[in-house]
C-alpha cells in the first residue's frame, strides 16, 4: 500500500484541493459581487 500511497495521495489530494479552492474562490467572488452590487 505504501508504494502506491504517493500516487493515490497525489490523485485524491488534487481533487480535494481543487474542490476546496473552488469553494473558497467562489465564496470570495460572491462576497465581492454582493459588495460591488451595494456600492
Amino acid at each position: 500500500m505504501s508504494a502506491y500511497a504517493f500516487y493515490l495521495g497525489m490523485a485524491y489530494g488534487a481533487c480535494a484541493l481543487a474542490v476546496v479552492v473552488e469553494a473558497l474562490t467562489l465564496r470570495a467572488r460572491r462576497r465581492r459581487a454582493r459588495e460591488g452590487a451595494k456600492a
Partner: protein
Amino acid sequence: MAINWYRYASPATFLPVAERLAPWFASAAAALAIAALYVGFVVAPTDATQGEAYRIIYVHVPTAWMAMFVYLVMAFWSALALAFNTRLSAMMAQALAPSGALMAFLALWTGAFWGRPTWGTYWAWDARMTSTLILLFLYFGVIALRNAIDDPRRADRACAVLTLVGAVNVPIIYFSVRWWNTLHQGASVTPGSSSMATTMLTGMLLMSLAAWAWCIAAALWRAGAIILERERGAAWVGALPSARGAS
C-alpha cells in the same frame, strides 16, 4: 404541472433560487463522495494485477465523464442562448465553463498518476486521455474568448457559437484520435475496463454522482456571482437584503 418557466428566465428571480439550491447540492456531493470512498476503499477488493493504485479510477473516471457531460450541458445552454436570446442561458453557460475545465484537468491529472504505477508512464498517448486534453483546450478557448471580449452580450453570443462548433467537433475529434491511436499503438493500453466487479462500478457511479452534484453546486454559486456582477446597475440588485446571506 404548469410551471411558468419564463419567470425563472429572469436573472432576478433565478438568483435566490440558485442561492437556496446550491448548498443542498454541495451537501449531497459531500455525502455521495463519502459513500463512494467507503465503497471504493473499504468494500471493493484489491485488483489482482494493478494493486492498490487502481483505486484512482474512482476519481479518474468520474472526472472524465463530468468533463464531457458539463460540455454538453454548456452546449445546451449555449443553444438556448442563441435561440431565445436570453441572458440567463448565456450566464449558465458562462458559469459552467470553469467547472468543466477543472473536471477535464483533474481527469488528466488523476489519469497521469494512475498511468505511472500501472504502465510506467505519466502520459501515454491513448485515445481517451488525448481527447480529454483537446477537450480541455476547447474549454480554455471558450474561457479565453469570454475574457477577451469586453461587451458581455457580444461575449455571450460569441462563446455560444464557439461552444456549439466545439460540440459538433468533439465526437469527430474523439473518433479521429481513436483511429490514430489504434493504428499507432496496436493493442489498446487504454485504462479501460473489460469486466469490472459490481462493487467497483458502484464506487465509480457514486463518485460520478458526487462530482455531478458538486459541479451543479459550483455552477449555481458561480452563476449567482455572475448575475450580481453583470446586473450591477439594475434596480433590483440595489434592493437586495444585506450581504449576510448564504455563504
